[in-house]
């Protein structure tokens, strides 16, 4: 092997680089420190991978799959339904009320119990930076510590866009959904099947908290209100519509 062979093999076949390096070093074609530099380069580029990354990807895929299956309908039925809705819309145009708290509760319970069944059992902790980044997309600023987040995703909730989080508390996991641009009453508590929770107005949307069994969610509401500055920026659909279109 001459110097030209070495240079071309080194560049073209990275998988064989160790062998090539050995030969090259033995043939005196390499400066003595070149292999050490490559080793350091590999170490430097090998940044630490977040522990929760793979679980997060698998969970997101399971959620996306469940949502897709849920909304898969026969195209003819979809067309018929669309025509019906257009006709109905013509009759009631201008009279549609905004989504109320009851509707949000039903949608949230359905979301948690049908599409995101595994979310409350997510292990680990989502890095605060990731949480902050998702919040920022919705015009929310994380300004203080809140309970550890074990799961976070951007989820559709009917016509709304939401941040779906699971917070770890001493009494067990609590699901929190920030529903962008949804109208809600000042504060409503509810009980649906195994779930209890509350809905409150929060910045430019609504916050729904859900837990299994009976839990006093008031302290968590206070913590979230303190930790999240929801009034700073309004939700901008242009920033997030792309994320949901995927």
């Amino acid at each position, binding site marked *: 092997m001459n110097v030209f062979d070495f240079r071309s093999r080194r560049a073209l076949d990275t998988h064989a680089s160790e062998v090539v390096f050995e030969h090259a070093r033995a043939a005196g074609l390499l400066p003595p420190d070149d292999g050490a530099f490559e080793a*350091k380069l590999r170490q430097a580029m090998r940044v630490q*991978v*977040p522990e929760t990354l793979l679980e997060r990807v698998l969970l*997101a895929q399971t959620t996306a799959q469940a949502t897709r299956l849920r909304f898969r309908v026969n195209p003819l039925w979809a067309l018929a339904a669309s025509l019906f809705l257009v006709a109905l819309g013509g009759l009631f145009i201008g009279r549609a009320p905004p989504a109320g708290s009851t509707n949000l509760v039903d949608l949230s319970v359905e979301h948690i119990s049908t599409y995101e069944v595994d979310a409350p059992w997510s292990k680990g902790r989502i890095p605060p930076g990731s949480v902050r980044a998702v919040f920022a997309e919705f015009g929310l600023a994380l300004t203080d510590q809140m309970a550890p987040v074990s799961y976070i995703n951007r989820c559709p909730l009917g016509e709304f866009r939401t941040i779906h989080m699971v917070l770890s508390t001493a009494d067990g996991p609590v699901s929190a959904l920030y529903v962008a641009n949804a109208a809600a009453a000042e504060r409503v508590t509810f009980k649906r099947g195994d779930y209890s929770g509350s809905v409150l107005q929060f910045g430019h949307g609504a916050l729904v908290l859900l837990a299994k069994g009976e839990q006093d969610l008031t302290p968590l509401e206070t913590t979230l209100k303190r930790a999240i500055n929801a009034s700073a920026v309004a939700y901008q659909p242009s920033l997030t519509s792309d994320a949901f279109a*995927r």
Partner: protein
Amino acid sequence: MTEPQFQFEALVRAHGAELYRVAFWLCRQREVAEDLVQETFLRAWRSLKDLREASKVKAWLMIILRREHARLYERKQHEQVDLADFEIEDMNVTAHAEQAEIRELRAAIFSLDAKYREPLAMQVIGGFSVDEIASALGLTPAAVMTQVFRAREKLKASLVGKGVEKSA
């Protein structure tokens, strides 16, 4: 678990870490890199049936990753990460001086232009050949060879005087 689901999970476990590292050096922001990896795999899942050659899966994922990065994040400005926060995942690097050297090198890679950083990451982390990188980046193999060579030269030059080169 269905067969495609099993296949997908194997794909994530086999390539997730590598993809994250390339994504990180592409965008230089941890949270964005995590989002990128997630979006890449979700897109891959939707197109899994189109994957004909299992041997090309890594290159396929890399192309999706680059497209997602261009589509979602390239034009956005992100807060840059503090490299001091990164723990050095190795393994054999225990000496304090050696860790300092790696940090210096990491900072130097961080400040490389994207045109050098990207092929370098694909080569060093992904183990891609020059032809594969050229195909993914839409460049000629000669251009890729020049870029990875220059990237190394720039890194070595930036480290001169900081003690890394000498001790390496």
